[in-house]
């Protein structure tokens, strides 16, 4: 009798009913606020992230309308400044990081073969914090009092004297608040990856996407605290006159150091998960093991380290000593080496393999073209003298859109097409997907490539208008028209997402014949993710299972309560079982309490105290041992 048949034998519909009962999220409107399952929370992060992407994109189109002609009066300067600030805040804080976390939260536990994240309630809490923060920022925009100082908010421009409105207060407190969400997600992802891998999935068998999320999470843990510290310092400067950044008593450059010590790793926090997505897609669509697994892992880790040593290249023009600055040229160009290793490992993996040209792979191929251009212009701007010519011009705008859209958004869209069937049970339309890819790819290059030239011709960033005699008008009009094409390209994918919900071809468990464990369960996964926790025998578990004709599984995990298998850090040996909490409303209440503390600080100094007391109450409720006591009773009876 093969093990597969054995499973059939001990399987019973009664047990599946029990598992579903235990793991399902409560239905209904009020039930919605109590979900803690990783699939629910991950999906919410992804959907909310794309909503902010669309909002940020609309802001970008408004800017392009304003800049289409010289001395245009479509937007007034204050509104334009608010819009470009909100575009940056949206794309960096409200879209890029949360959506990567969203994909990680949804995919990682499935990839690891476990039933939930380590801290499901914290997970839900992180989502509500993110939602409240994003809503607060957009509220400030709709009230016409959004920050108008750029997403980097350099003091003294951002201090109370030069930006008297409430916009920067919103920025300073909401950014701090928002990063709580990033930090809790990072901590749980690290614990989940370290302690919940399916038995046999030792570190050297972990999928590359999991490695990339691990690196991203560690980067978040080290990069976000400087940002939170510095944004609290800015808030204190503004509300109680702390003068951290006042020239003379403090130093405006201190802000820039702290901000970019966060800000540069932030770019890699966005980019590293995308690298993991690319590896997943290439493995699946070449149907072969990837070349250079170890080299790829080491490159990811190296990127994570080097990413913290580059922040000064945002500050070359601030008058730092040139010799010191030149060391950062060397450090900045060094990061091209792990990137080069990765690009060529992928190339070697693709070479001659007759890959399947489905939409996800197209986005990856698009990534190669765009990202290599962005990387090369990135090396150019790493040079101190060249940077003094292009810093804060449209050349830089072109460069970082090439890196961020090419390096992160293209793989992200590839990932969306790739994992959509897992999330919804249906495939997205290939025809519309390919059309969307080509529109996006062409629209992107026509929009952003000419910006290199505009920057070299002297056009600064963050200008709401420019004079006609400078001769930038024609190219700006061209860029604005192209941005429409780019928007249509993105829109096509969103249309595809909605159409395919109902009309998409049913996907089945594993529509791409992929290798990793998330494809080894139903699409969409049942609330308990896996009927049996699988045992992993190699780097490509589903392919190995196919080869061996039998699926070894773990038994002995209780089905009558939420329980997970905990395994050892290096080799993923089973260690213990862990009971998980179920649906609860306390994460929402705690998020609201913390939100009142932070948000209220904009209006009055008493609110942090109020928020503290409310949070304390919420935490007491969260940890109230009622449920445990009840279960102890049940167990003894």
């Amino acid at each position, binding site marked *: 009798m093969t093990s597969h048949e054995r499973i059939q034998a001990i399987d019973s519909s009664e047990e599946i009913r029990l598992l579903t009962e235990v793991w399902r999220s409560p239905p209904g409107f009020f039930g919605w606020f109590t979900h803690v399952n990783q699939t629910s929370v991950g999906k919410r992060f992804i959907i909310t992230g794309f909503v902010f992407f669309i909002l940020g994109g609309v802001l970008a189109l408004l800017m392009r309308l304003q800049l289409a002609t010289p001395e245009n009066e479509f937007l007034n300067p204050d509104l334009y400044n608010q819009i470009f600030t909100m575009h940056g805040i949206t794309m960096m804080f409200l879209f890029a990081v949360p959506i990567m976390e969203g994909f990680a939260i949804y995919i990682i536990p499935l990839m690891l073969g476990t039933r939930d994240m380590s801290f499901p309630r914290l997970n839900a809490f992180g989502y509500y914090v993110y939602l409240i923060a994003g809503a607060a920022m957009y509220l400030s925009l709709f009230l016409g009092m959004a920050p108008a100082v750029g997403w980097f908010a350099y003091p003294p421009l951002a201090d109370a004297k030069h930006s008297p409105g409430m916009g920067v207060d919103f920025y300073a407190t909401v950014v701090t608040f928002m990063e709580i969400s990033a930090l809790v997600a990072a901590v749980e992802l690290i614990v989940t990856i370290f302690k919940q891998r399916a038995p046999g999935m030792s570190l050297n068998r972990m999928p590359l996407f999991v490695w990339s999320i691990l690196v991203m999470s560690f980067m978040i843990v080290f990069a976000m605290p400087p940002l939170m510290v510095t944004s609290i310092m800015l808030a204190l400067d503004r509300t109680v006159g702390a003068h951290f950044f006042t020239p003379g008593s403090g130093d405006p450059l201190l802000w820039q150091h702290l901000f970019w010590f966060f800000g540069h790793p932030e770019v890699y926090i966005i980019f590293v998960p995308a690298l993991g997505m690319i590896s997943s897609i290439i493995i699946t669509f070449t149907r072969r093991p990837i070349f250079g697994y170890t080299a790829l892992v080491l490159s990811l880790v190296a990127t994570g380290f080097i990413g913290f040593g580059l922040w000064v290249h945002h500050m070359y023009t*601030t008058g730092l000593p040139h010799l010191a600055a030149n060391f950062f040229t060397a450090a900045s160009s060094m990061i091209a080496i792990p990137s080069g290793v*990765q690009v060529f490992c992928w190339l070697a993996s693709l070479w001659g393999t007759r890959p399947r040209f489905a939409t996800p792979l197209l986005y990856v191929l698009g990534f190669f073209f765009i990202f290599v251009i962005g990387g090369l212009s990135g090396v150019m701007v790493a040079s101190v003298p060249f940077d003094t010519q292009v810093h804060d011009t449209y050349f830089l705008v072109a460069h970082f859109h090439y890196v961020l859209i090419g390096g992160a958004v293209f793989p992200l869209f590839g990932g969306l097409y790739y994992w959509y069937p897992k999330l919804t049970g249906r495939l997205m339309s290939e025809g519309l997907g390919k059309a969307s890819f080509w529109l996006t790819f062409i629209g992107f290059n026509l929009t952003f490539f000419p910006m290199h030239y505009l920057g070299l011709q*002297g056009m600064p960033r963050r200008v709401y208008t420019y004079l006609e005699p400078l001769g930038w008008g024609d190219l700006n009009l*061209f860029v604005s028209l192209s941005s429409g094409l780019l928007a249509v390209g993105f829109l096509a994918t969103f249309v595809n997402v909605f159409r395919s919900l109902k009309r998409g071809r049913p996907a089945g468990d594993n529509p791409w014949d992929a290798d990793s464990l998330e494809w080894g369960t139903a699409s969409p996964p049942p609330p308990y993710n896996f009927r049996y926790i699988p045992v992993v025998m190699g780097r490509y578990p589903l392919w190995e299972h196919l080869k061996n004709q039998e699926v070894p599984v773990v038994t002995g995990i209780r089905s009558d309560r939420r329980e997970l298998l905990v395994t050892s850090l290096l080799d993923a040996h089973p260690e213990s079982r862990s009971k998980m909490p179920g649906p609860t409303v306390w994460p929402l209440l705690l998020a609201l309490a913390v939100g009142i503390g932070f948000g209220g600080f904009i209006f009055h100094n008493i609110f942090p105290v109020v928020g503290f007391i409310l949070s304390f109450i919420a935490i007491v409720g969260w940890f109230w041992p009622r449920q445990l006591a009840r279960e102890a009773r049940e167990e003894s009876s």
Partner: protein
Amino acid sequence: MTSTRVGFNRSRLRGAALSLACVLLCACSGQQSAITPQGPVADRIAWFFWIMTGVAGAILALVLFLLLAGVFRGRQQAQSKPLTYIQSRNLVLVSGVVMPVAVLLGFTLFSAMTDRVVAKPLPADALTVEIIGHQWWWEVHYLDNRQRRIATTANEIHIPVGRPVRLLLKATDVIHSFWVPNLSGKTDMIPGKTNTGWLQADQPGTFRGQCVEFCGLQHARMAFWVEAQPAGEFQSWLARQREPAAAPDDPVLARGQAVFLASQCVMCHAVRGTRALGRVAPDLTHFGGRRTLAAASVPNSRGHLAGWILDPQGIKPGNFMPPTALAPDDLSALLDYLHSLK
């Protein structure tokens, strides 16, 4: 039928490509351009840029060639023919490690050598100009070799051709950044700090500069002009700038001066040689000689000046100059007076 359609498309395509090329090559004025260098610093950087662009283009071509060759090679064959382990390893080692290390080493050294030109120490007797960034205009002082201010102007910098000019860059309110792309890279102006830079023009000419660090509402309209003049011309310009304004020698001008001194203008502006000593706005002592108004926002013509005095918020919304209501005759006399201050 088909062929005509193809031909039509082709010619349309060619037309579009031509017009794009024209846009790229001939549209920009070149007066604020980093790739139309007019001085040694900008020239070195532009040269470095073209070399980097050439190398980067070659690398891009190589990577794309490998990608397309690798992907489509497999596609044409019936069987997939992946690289062997050794081939893959060599590909990654050579093109992913050895070549990048070599190129980047060269790049870093080349960059540092270029930077030596940018950071070159200037002779002690080099002309020194102190420039202070304000929201949203530029205060310019010429210093003698004992670092005393000898002349003051705004939003316009005259320099002698062929001589290095040392810049002392300061700010009092928020961070600005000083940039004349035709001559040199940018340097930030940070409150509480004095940054230094230098530039030099090799030919006489006028070059536009603009603030490149976001500094608030009217960041976009904070520009200036640099005028590079032959040494003799520059010296006579500087000598004239050092003088106080001449007393008006004409009843209309005298009336204009009276209007000026009686108005709120004197709260902020100075005209040296008169009672107007305000220092929070541009010094107007030799205002009539300047080419633009409102930090290079509009030409310094009679009409624009009238508009600027009556309704500065219409031209540059949010700037700190209040509107001044004047009777038509007074305004006319004031315009004559201001433009007489050469």
